[in-house]
């Protein structure tokens, strides 16, 4: 056993509070340490070369790197070891930067602790066995969950690369929130005009299979070998026969169902397509409100349907499918304003959210694009926008900034002023945030060209008295309180992850932050990958973002997914459980603890399937006789580390 | 004949020389503090080598007792302590205590007798101390025959010493054999017991056998067929030893303790012991 120890200065990050020479000198007292050196930047090219030379020159069988966190450069140094001919798993990293030099100011304490951490790493490397990565096959098929612009873009990119994609959407049509929008900033393109072509491409692409009105129920397996169980909810309409002529929803007698797509501002029939350009353009029978399903009478839609596509006896179809990668694109929903009674959102019809305004402004919307007050249908002369409702609010709302509200409010203001030049628009804001390309110019136009009044202040209370909305407000710049009125108030409500995200995350065993956004593997370096291998994040499910960013991230997620699908074999993590069958009594206690069901009983001794095992170690620490052990974190290694640290 | 006053306390010692005999066997030359030998020993006796913090084990002293400067131990890498010993370099410190066990009867039974040494693999190590003692007092003893076999030529320890020194010794014949055919090997091929049958020694000799238990068993049977009496054949019993002074009970077979009544036993004595070795 010949060990080399390398202490990094990391410029001044480590050198500032840790005496690297002292550590390099002290570790040499261990007879097994044959070489110790320090270097300003070990992760840099020069540093890595220094390690490779030392491994060759001193025939090192184990290397200890005292530097930054293994989460940062463990793979880098493993590749360096491999280049030097050493088994990549006979390298150990002592984290003396994030967990020592940066968190302890006193130099002696930091150096003492760094030496202890170094000795612990030496104790581990002495017991490190050479490990060899295994291989597992890759199913060349992707699963995208969520049919909004993010899911569509990801699916298209993966399909373009030649891989089959299943796009699963819970609502009857793809399109997501973007389909509900009228215009998009900063170019004021019509949302439908830029979205529907992509939706049609997605539907038409021979590599993409759409599963609308469907949900993912269960996911098992791991990167390259996922198995998903998907439930296609019964549409009660045969998709092959239906031509989308619309005769059925014309005739459907129950018409008073609030349309989710129009945020309840308009109604739909029991058999419906969410919106005109729906893809697939095949209606769905909402069994909860359809009279035929409630009490068996009616069935008009079946009568008028020439191609006889209506089939009331249709059952949910549940199927399982193998996938290599999974991309979460579950998008967002508007934050519920129940906690904000002071804005009288639930009391007055004329207080609406921005999304509802999008529907009112949308030509295909409930008012055919005419801006009318939902209460009396009159054109509002004076409209007030209130920003950050629920965002940046630790006590009752979301701590984060929802990022897109400043821009879409400016867009609304310009769109309204374009159509109704005489309309008066006030916008109450905390800060106007316009960081994107062409964003600030757009906002300046709203102020200078269209004369939109921006008031840096808050609205305290709104009350509707005989049709007029009275507001107590405060202007922070003028530092005065004042009352104002408006015909309509639009609340820029915060956005939050869609409800389907949390159950999906648990199914995928992917970590989520406390705000139910998917946690990315690394905030700066790996923003589109989740911590679980083979699972990628596209769109707002990872955090608030506007359409340009969403599309960018969607393509990035697709590119990462293609990275996996392009390989024929995946290198599996060698740090998996292994059994010493001489010690195993076959009691089977480890089987129940394994989250991946990787352990089975073979001729009354346990066996861990290296392809399924992800190396959590739950079985190893449960086994009373230490028959089950975990490569890379063996009992002996951790006990040696404990001894070294406690000495 | 061990140090009565120190009981289980070892002496500090140092390795002064290491020779690689085979892939998994090394011979360590060990010497006590200020270059002296802390205790005398007789051929066939053993000593407890220990590495503090790792463990202790009994190894036969393969150097001649007449050699004043150092002890020699030929150690095969089998377990935890032996692997650790194999990682040591020259000048590494170890600790040592001994000498334990009943030596070969060089000063009484063997005097004036023709001697037949039969060794297998690492079994040559204990016999080597007797052979070199006999060579140092050559006139006291009769003819010497050495039959030494191993799995392959690479497994023959002290090969150059045998070929250069031992064959040149007066009235001494060395017969080497390996288990399987090997190109570049001119000597005999075959297991030791069959080779003894081919050589067929006259049964007046005193035979000393050391090696793997299966080799001892068949060699003994062959010797008896040739007319040897069990009282003329000596061998060693390989038992686990912890104290070396007949107290800790590990090497207890019947009413004997391998570490003080052995490990060298006459074959008839072994028959009195229960079949547990």
């Amino acid at each position: 056993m010949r060990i080399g120890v390398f202490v990094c200065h990391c410029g001044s990050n480590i050198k500032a509070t840790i005496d690297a020479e002292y550590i390099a000198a002290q570790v040499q007292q261990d007879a097994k340490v044959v070489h110790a050196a320090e270097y300003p930047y070990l992760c840099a090219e020069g540093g890595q070369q220094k390690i490779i030379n030392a491994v060759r020159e001193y025939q090192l069988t184990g290397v200890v790197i005292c530097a930054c966190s293994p989460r940062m450069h463990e793979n880098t140094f493993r590749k360096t070891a491999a280049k030097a001919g050493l088994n990549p798993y006979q390298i150990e990293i002592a984290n003396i930067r994030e967990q020592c030099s940066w968190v302890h100011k006193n130099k002696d304490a930091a150096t003492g602790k760094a030496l202890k951490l170094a000795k612990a790493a030496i104790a581990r490397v002495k017991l490190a066995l050479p490990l060899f990565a295994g291989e597992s096959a890759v199913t060349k098929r992707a699963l995208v969950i969520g049919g909004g612009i993010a899911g569509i873009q990801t699916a298209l990119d993966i399909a373009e690369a030649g891989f089959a994609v299943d796009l699963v959407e819970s609502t009857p049509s793809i399109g997501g929130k973007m389909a509900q929008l009228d215009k998009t900033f900063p170019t004021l393109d019509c949302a439908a005009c830029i979205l529907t072509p992509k939706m049609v491409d997605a539907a038409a692409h021979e590599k993409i299979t759409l599963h609308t009105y469907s949900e993912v129920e269960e996911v098992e397996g791991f990167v390259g070998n996922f198995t998903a169980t998907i439930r296609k909810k019964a549409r009660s309409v045969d998709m092959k026969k239906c031509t989308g002529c619309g005769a059925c929803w014309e005739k459907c007698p129950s018409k008073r169902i609030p349309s989710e797509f129009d945020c309840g501002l308009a109604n739909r029939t029991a058999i419906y397509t969410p919106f005109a350009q729906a893809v697939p353009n095949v209606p769905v029978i909402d069994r909860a409100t359809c009279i035929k399903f409630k009490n068996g009478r009616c069935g008009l839609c079946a009568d008028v349907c020439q191609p006889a596509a209506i089939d009331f006896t249709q059952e949910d179809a549940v199927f399982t499918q193998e996938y290599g990668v999974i991309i979460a694109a579950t998008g967002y929903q508007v934050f519920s304003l129940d906690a904000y009674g002071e804005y009288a959102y639930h009391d007055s019809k004329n207080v609406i959210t921005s999304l509802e305004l999008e529907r009112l402004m949308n030509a295909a919307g409930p008012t055919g694009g005419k801006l009318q007050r939902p209460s009396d249908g009159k054109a509002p002369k004076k409209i007030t926008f209130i920003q950050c409702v629920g965002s940046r609010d630790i006590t009752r709302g979301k701590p984060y900034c929802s990022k897109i509200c400043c821009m879409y409010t400016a867009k609304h203001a310009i769109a309204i002023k374009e159509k109704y030049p005489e309309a008066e628009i006030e916008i109450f804001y905390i800060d106007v945030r316009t960081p994107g390309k062409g964003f600030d110019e757009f906002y300046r136009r709203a102020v200078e060209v269209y004369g939109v009044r921006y008031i840096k202040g808050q609205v305290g209370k709104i009350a509707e008295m005989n049709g007029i909305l009275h507001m107590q407000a405060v202007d922070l710049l003028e530092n005065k309180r004042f009352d104002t009125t408006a015909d309509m108030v639009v609340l820029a409500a915060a956005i939050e992850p869609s409800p389907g995200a949390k159950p999906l995350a648990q199914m995928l065993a992917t970590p989520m932050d406390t705000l139910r956004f998917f946690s990315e593997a690394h905030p700066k370096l790996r923003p589109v990958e989740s911590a679980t291998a083979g699972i990628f994040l596209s769109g707002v499910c990872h955090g608030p973002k506007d359409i340009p960013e969403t599309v960018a991230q969607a393509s990035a997620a697709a590119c990462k997914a293609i990275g996996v699908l392009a390989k024929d074999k995946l290198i599996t993590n060698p740090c998996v459980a292994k059994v010493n069958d001489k010690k195993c009594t076959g009691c089977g206690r480890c089987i129940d603890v394994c989250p991946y069901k990787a352990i089975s009983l073979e001729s009354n001794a346990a066996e861990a399937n290296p392809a399924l095992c992800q190396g959590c170690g739950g079985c190893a620490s449960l086994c009373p006789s230490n028959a089950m052990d975990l490569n890379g974190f063996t009992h002996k290694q951790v006990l040696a580390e404990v001894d070294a640290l406690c000495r | 004949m061990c140090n009565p006053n120190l009981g289980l306390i070892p002496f500090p010692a140092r390795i002064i020389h290491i020779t690689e005999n085979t892939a998994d066997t090394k011979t360590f030359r060990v010497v006590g503090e200020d270059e002296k030998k802390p205790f005398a020993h007789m051929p066939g006796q053993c000593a407890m080598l220990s590495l503090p913090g790792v463990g202790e084990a009994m190894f036969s002293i393969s150097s001649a007792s007449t050699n004043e400067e150092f002890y020699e131990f030929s150690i095969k890498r089998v377990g935890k302590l032996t692997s650790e010993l194999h990682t040591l370099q020259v000048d590494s410190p170890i600790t040592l205590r001994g000498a334990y066990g009943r030596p070969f009867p060089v000063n009484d039974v063997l005097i004036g007798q023709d001697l037949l040494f039969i060794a297998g693999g690492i079994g040559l190590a204990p016999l080597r101390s007797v052979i070199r003692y006999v060579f140092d007092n050559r006139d006291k003893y009769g003819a010497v025959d050495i039959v030494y076999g191993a799995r392959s030529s690479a497994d023959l320890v002290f090969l150059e010493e045998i070929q250069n020194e031992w064959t040149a010794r007066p009235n001494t014949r060395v017969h080497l054999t390996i288990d399987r055919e090997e190109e570049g090997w001119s000597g005999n091929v075959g297991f030791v017991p069959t080779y003894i049958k081919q050589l067929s020694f006259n049964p007046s000799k005193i035979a000393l056998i050391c090696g793997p238990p299966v080799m001892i068993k068949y060699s003994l049977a062959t010797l008896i067929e040739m007319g040897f009496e069990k009282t003329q054949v000596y061998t060693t019993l390989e038992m686990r030893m912890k104290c070396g002074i007949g107290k800790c009970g590990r090497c207890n077979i019947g009413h004997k303790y391998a570490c003080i009544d052995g490990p060298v036993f006459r074959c008839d004595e072994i028959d009195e012991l229960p079949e547990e070795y």
Partner: protein
Amino acid sequence: MSVKIVAFCCNWCSYAGADLAGTSRLNYPAQVKIIRVPCSCRVDVQFILRAFVRGADGVIVCGCHLGDCHYSTGNYHAEGRLTQLFSLLDFMGFERERVHLEWISAAEGAKFAATMDAFVTQVSALGKNERYRNMYTKAGAQNE
């Protein structure tokens, strides 16, 4: 004499939280020494007891928040097992405050530093761990 603390941190959440405490240049006492384990469920009862026998004064196990575990159920098993261990140690008369289980996510650097601070103060109040080492006074056992 300052107390020795061993912290078992799970690689995906609490170890990342510890790193975040580093990148945010927060501060916590240097007696805390972190051992990385793939998941909090890798922390075997033997490791904790061995740490105490070898002279640690406090052991803290950190893992992902329930439901956030990278291995989905790892921290549930850890919680089950460690609750039993802690209740047994308390039953055997050891100071319950010397052991602790905390859920710290990768985003909670501040919480990590605060938890370590609080734990070190709590253990320092108890001083060196005499009880864990002298429970079993077989002749000569513990006078190393």
